[in-house]
């Protein structure tokens, strides 16, 4: 009897051991499998992390990328003109870029392709001080405009001023680099271009100034996407990009449904850099600008904008939107 008990205990222990061993190896196996299955993507932002990148950060922090089998490495450049070159040179898989600049780049022969939308409206505009002398675009003649050169200023200014009978040649353009708000507040320039409605308007408010923005899309300039994702037109992984955009879509949905909670998640991503009043205000001002359908392709809208640039002599070569937009 004693022996029987001993055997039974031994048998049970062996069984348990073998079970637990089996379980641990199988769980390790599945771990390796999932690690293997995670597809790595390198994404280069166009600037340091800020609320414009909300859906990317939320998708990362909420684990949407991993759920969809992706490991996304986020990189930040110092020069917004660098990412397209790195994508073209196959150094990074995806980059955040601007629709007008993509059109330029494609016309200049860079092998780039639209691979999704992050911010689906213009954020830029012509910004003046509310209590300044400029009440309408008509008052801009002979004035000085500070800008951070983007490459499309002349076309935009010609369109903005056309109803009043003057053009880009009737204002003085000054490159002010990143000193947009300070050059406007100090009175060195009368207006600024390249200022974002979600950032600089709030920055002015924090500094005790009120800004008045002339929105491009309300003043005859065709609407465009401010921030998009670009990939190499010759070499890109469609399946991975599709999954990436699905994660971005989930991120955007989460932000729209949970503004306060998402702000807390975003802020905690890098509290030392992100937790400040400007970013908080910008976060809530940006929510309505994120594209709810990042993978949705609107070739007609892109073609209309390319044609607009072409008409204003901003493109050296004609471009067709179908050639520089991804088809899933």
């Amino acid at each position: 009897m004693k022996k029987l008990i001993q055997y039974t205990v031994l048998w049970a222990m062996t069984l348990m051991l073998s079970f637990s061993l089996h379980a641990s190896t199988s769980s390790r196996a599945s771990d390796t499998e999932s690690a293997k299955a995670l597809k790595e993507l390198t994404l280069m932002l166009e600037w340091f992390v800020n609320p414009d990148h909300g859906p990317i950060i939320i998708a990362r922090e909420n684990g949407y990328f991993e759920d969809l089998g992706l490991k996304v490495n986020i990189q930040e450049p110092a020069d917004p003109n660098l990412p397209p070159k790195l994508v073209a040179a196959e150094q990074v898989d995806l980059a955040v870029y601007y629709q007008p600049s993509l059109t330029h780049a494609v016309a200049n022969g860079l092998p780039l392709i639209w691979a999704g939308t992050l911010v689906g409206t213009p954020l830029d505009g012509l910004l003046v001080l509310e209590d300044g002398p400029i009440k309408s675009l008509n008052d801009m003649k002979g004035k000085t405009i500070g800008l951070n050169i983007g490459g499309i200023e002349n076309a935009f200014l010609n369109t903005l001023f056309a109803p009043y009978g003057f053009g880009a040649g009737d204002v003085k353009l000054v490159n002010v680099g990143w000193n947009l708000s300070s050059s406007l507040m100090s009175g060195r320039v009368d207006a600024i271009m390249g200022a974002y409605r979600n950032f600089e308007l709030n920055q002015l408010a924090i500094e005790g100034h009120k800004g008045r923005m002339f929105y491009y899309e309300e003043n005859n300039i065709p609407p465009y996407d401010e921030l998009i994702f670009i990939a190499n037109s010759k070499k890109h992984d469609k399946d991975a990009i599709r999954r990436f955009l699905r994660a971005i879509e989930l991120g955007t949905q989460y932000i729209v449904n949970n503004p306060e909670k998402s702000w807390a998640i975003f802020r905690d991503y890098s509290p030392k850099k992100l937790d400040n009043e400007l970013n908080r205000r910008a976060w809530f001002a940006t929510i309505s600008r994120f594209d709810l359908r990042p993978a949705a392709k609107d070739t007609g809208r892109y073609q209309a904008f390319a044609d607009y640039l072409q008409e204003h002599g901003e493109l050296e070569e004609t471009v067709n939107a179908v050639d520089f937009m991804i088809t899933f």
Partner: protein
Amino acid sequence: MKDSIKPFIVLSGLLILWHALVVAFAMPAYILPGPLEVANSMVEHASLLWEHTLVTLSEMLLGLLLGVLLGIILALILVYFTALRPWLLPPLLITQAIPVFALAPILMLWFGYGLTSKVVMTILVIFFPVATCCYDGLRHTHQGWLDMAQTMGGNRFAILRHIRWPAALPALASGLRVAVVVAPIGAVVGEWVGSSAGLGYLMLQANARLWVDQMFAALTVLAFCSVTLYYTTDRLLRRLIPWQPETSQE
């Protein structure tokens, strides 16, 4: 071989190497345009380049003129007003410790986006090498000459004019050579941060439009200006200060 030919040989060699690199690695123009493409762009945009070169050159030359003057005055103050030295040196060092790139945006707000801010930037970059070289030169005058001048009854000004100054000139010349080489940095950094004309502005525009060949064309013109300025200054200095060591060795 004549010395004046050597730089051209080096330059031609570099151009051939550049062309070979572009051809061998089949470099796309947006990463590195070939010398032929850049030359083509220079011809195509000759008038535009010329217009912006004049702006940058005037910023550089005006900055050089004022910076050298300021540097020399400062060196003289440091030598003759010894009581001021401990007060002047710390702020001088601070101006050099702060990178011009960090200072530039503030200077733009103070002096505006026109010529003044670029000239101030250039002065900031060059006055220090000029001042330190000139100061060193003035300090290290041969003691025997000074003693002799004093024995012969020379006053302070006469000693400066006939002994200290000529003896300091070779050292000042080294400072001037450095100043000429770094002057374009001051001007272009200024244009990069805030401007409406100049080669730096043109480069920014070309960069934003991804016109890499035009950007290289502007860079080439800038390099050409710097090299020409350096060799012209060097020749002038050799002729004006025949007693400097470099000349006497040859």
